[in-house]
């Protein structure tokens, strides 16, 4: 399978605080769902900004499909990769939901007549089509994030990066956004690559693969099933385990296999019987 995103020998320093990434490499396969986790300031959001050319790096190479990121390919890369940011309010450009989805289409110079159908389709995919004429301040945080997803989806990207997209949401809004992501992934399968930057381990457990970053270094890069068995090491990195795994450890249950909350519940109830 081809790589959707390849980062090779990347070096980047913050303008004032100094070095962050040193000879950093990471690749994401087409159709993969990757979670990037790390504590605050570990460089995970910076990585997303680097991929989209919002920050300039010093050395190394970032490749998006067969395009090497540069001044010339910036527009092409941005039409392949979409991004949903953390703050629901600060990425809402339009005055209404439909206008916001239209913003990207207008930039791409899609003819006016084709827009309503594309907007409708994108909003349907996130279940927000009934809200097309609503103004942002009448929406909840979760709804705004779903509109932000629709705005990205309308541009038909191959890769979507979610930069802590659920961090500012209430539990309900968060569940709605995550549910939506699952549906999208199920619909597009290998045509959609998802990169989810998060510090929520329940979220990370949804991914196919988890990359753990600490101070610009790639510490782990493996499946959630194996990663979440390393409770001690994760805590050292300022991270936690998913609830089920933490609970199991607290209970002193020795079980070498990874379990989701449902699996643990099922397993515990067999014990009782």
């Amino acid at each position: 399978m081809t790589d959707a995103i390849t980062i090779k020998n990347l070096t980047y320093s913050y303008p004032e605080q100094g070095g962050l990434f040193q000879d950093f490499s990471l690749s994401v396969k087409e159709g993969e769902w990757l979670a990037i986790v790390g504590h605050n300031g570990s460089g995970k959001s910076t990585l997303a900004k680097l991929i989209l050319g919002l920050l300039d790096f010093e050395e190394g190479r970032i490749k998006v499909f067969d395009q090497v990121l540069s001044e010339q390919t910036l527009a092409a890369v941005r039409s392949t990769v979409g991004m949903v940011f953390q703050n629901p309010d600060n990425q809402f450009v339009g005055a209404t939901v439909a206008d916001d989805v239209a913003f990207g289409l207008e930039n791409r110079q899609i003819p006016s007549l084709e827009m309503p159908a594309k907007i409708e389709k994108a909003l349907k995919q996130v279940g927000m089509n009934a809200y097309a004429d609503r103004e942002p301040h009448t929406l909840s945080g979760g709804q705004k994030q779903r509109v932000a997803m629709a705005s990205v989806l309308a541009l038909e990207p191959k890769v979507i990066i979610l930069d802590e997209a659920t961090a500012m949401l209430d539990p309900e809004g968060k569940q709605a956004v995550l549910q939506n992501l699952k549906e999208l992934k199920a619909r597009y399968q290998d045509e959609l690559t998802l990169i989810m930057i998060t510090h929520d381990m329940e979220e990370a457990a949804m991914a196919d693969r988890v990359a753990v970053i600490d101070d610009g270094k790639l510490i782990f890069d493996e499946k959630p099933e194996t990663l979440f068995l390393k409770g001690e090491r994760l805590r050292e990195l300022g991270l936690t385990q998913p609830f089920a795994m933490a609970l199991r450890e607290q209970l002193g249950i020795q079980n070498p296999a990874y379990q989701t909350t449902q699996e643990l519940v099922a397993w515990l109830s067999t014990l009782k019987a």
Partner: protein
Amino acid sequence: MNNLVIGQFVPGDGLLYRLDPRTKILMTIVYVFMLVFANGWTTYLWSAAFLLLALILTKQGLGLYWRGIKPILWLILFTVVLQLLFSGGTPVLFALGPVKVTAPGLMNAIYVVVRFVLIVLMSTILTITTPPTAIASAIESLLKPLKVLRVPVAELALMLSIALRFVPLLMGETDKIMKAQKSRGMSLSTGSLVKRAKAVIPLLVPLFVGALQRALDLANAMEVRGFESAEGRTRYRELAYGRDDTLAFFATLLFFLGFIWLSIL
């Protein structure tokens, strides 16, 4: 703040909602401009009749317009008092010491109230029936000739629509900061004027910092979605001049001619 009707869009389906926003802006400008030249009760009556027609065509309840007038009642009252007391002239209707209320003063006061109310109502009709985005794109379209002078009209219009979009957000944020500072003992309503002015600073600083952060985030979000320049973008909402607009044009022309006829009569 939420009761403020001026500048607020209220969804509806009257004829005025279907007009091209450019038509409505031009109509409002012509109307306000003409009112400045109103010189007697006939012209005021004529203007009021035109306004009434517009009011009916919005299909909105009168209560909404009353709420539009209410916040400026004090301002109107203030100008009325000024006109009543300081217009001078004869005959004197009644006097209380050095304060005289004269007949021309009374006339002036009535005219000022009528003019004030008519102007406010007409602009309220414009904003009630036109969403801010439509106003922004109408302004862009109307200012197009300025492109010859290298005025960045498209950029200005985009800035305007983004600014409008952030007004409710920043208002909410101001409210939040104000409450946070109040809970720490700040008071904006007591103390000397200097003290009160100083109390505004801890309000403004976080507001500005927040606004700058938002601006940076928004710039990123816009770039990622392919924004390069306000020029050369297609439009989701195309402005279209229709049959109703021609109708409105003739109505305004009729008003204009009638107004001139009445004022030279």
